[in-house]
């Protein structure tokens, strides 16, 4: 361990008093020989504040930096700090808006030159002779539940370390689309399905994190 060299960082403090940033090219050890970084990696992964018990160091739970993945002193990944993530989101919104308007404009122009088509409802495939209304509603709700659940699992990979928010949460877009495509009298079914999927995905994610 002592021979491992690389870039290390952490908060150097005297108990709870913040003293400064620890940066270095060698792996520091406490007086009693505990490897500070290894211990920090161990405990920060569980979201706790770790201390050596001496006055040498404390690794606060640094939500916006990566202390959870350190291997042989190399920083392998680095969660996006919150403010930088906001910049990234603004960048994406700034691009998607003009593109969306352009695509809508082009589609409008195409529609003008083509035969006017009939807009079919969301669950047109289930309607009418083949399936009853309740069955079609149930199938749609199940499909939305599955989309929301699996979407949430993907989304949770983008969660801000310091909050519950994900940088991108497409599962909500799925639910909103389902609401927009169905009459408000059926919304309770979709909201309930979304809530159940939300709770299941969240519990699974946080349990897996805590148990890691």
């Amino acid at each position, binding site marked *: 361990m002592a021979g491992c060299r690389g870039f290390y960082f952490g908060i150097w403090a005297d108990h709870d008093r913040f003293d400064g940033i620890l940066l270095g090219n060698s792996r520091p050890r406490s007086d009693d020989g505990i490897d500070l970084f290894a211990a920090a990696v161990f405990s920060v992964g569980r979201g706790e504040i770790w201390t050596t018990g001496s006055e040498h160091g404390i690794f606060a739970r640094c939500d916006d930096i990566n202390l959870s993945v350190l291997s042989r002193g190399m920083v392998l990944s680095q969660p996006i700090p919150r403010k930088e993530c*906001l910049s990234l989101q603004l960048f994406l919104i700034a691009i998607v808006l003009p593109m969306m308007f352009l695509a809508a404009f082009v589609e409008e122009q195409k529609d003008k030159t083509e035969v006017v088509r009939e807009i079919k409802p969301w669950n047109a495939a289930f309607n009418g002779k083949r399936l009853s209304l309740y069955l079609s509603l149930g199938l749609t709700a199940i499909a939305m539940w599955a989309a929301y659940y699996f979407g949430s699992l993907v989304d949770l990979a983008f969660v801000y370390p310091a909050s519950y928010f994900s940088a991108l949460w497409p599962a909500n877009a799925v639910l909103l689309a389902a609401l927009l495509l169905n009459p408000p009298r059926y919304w309770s079914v979709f909201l309930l399905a979304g809530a159940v999927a939300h709770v299941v995905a969240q519990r699974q994610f946080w349990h897996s994190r805590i148990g890691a």
Partner: protein
Amino acid sequence: MTCTTIYDCALRGSDGLSVRQFGAINGDLGNLRRSIIFVGQITAATALMAWGWPLIQISVGYGSDNIWLEWRHALLSNLLPFLILTPGIVLGSTRGAEIIKRASLKQWMEMIVILAGLLGSGIGVFGLKSHALGNFPALLYIPLPFLLWAAVRLGLVGLSLSFLAFAFMTMLNALAGNGPFVSQLPADNIFGYRCS
């Protein structure tokens, strides 16, 4: 978790009501006027409902004290997927079968080329170390021609798919510590954290 679940449901419901109530869409977003109204309404409703998040955080004693920052988190995290995905899903649901039926081999090839171009240019640009982009910020615009191509040739559904791939790739690179949206040193991040 209960709070966040209720909050999420309320947010979706209010957004849906807002858009429904004012008649922005009727199963069809492939229209410039309706798209503009949709964006305006969804932004306004999300911005309003986003205030609920900092209030929840304060009430449960979690999160930072910076209400403005929390509000921006709530707004942007919810608004971005609404803008990227919802029009694509709505249109795909109403016109999907027709679009697939009418799509020519050429259009499928275009879709593949666009996705490959977006992924390739995206990895090339957003996969770079953050300091590498410092001298060439124009590199950020490399994926734009592919997105323009998708918007013009593939419509809202194709654009949604393409943009989703682009957004995921950008985020994954940022999470891996690459790209222009990650500061150069972990020390910068820790200072930002301590000072925020």
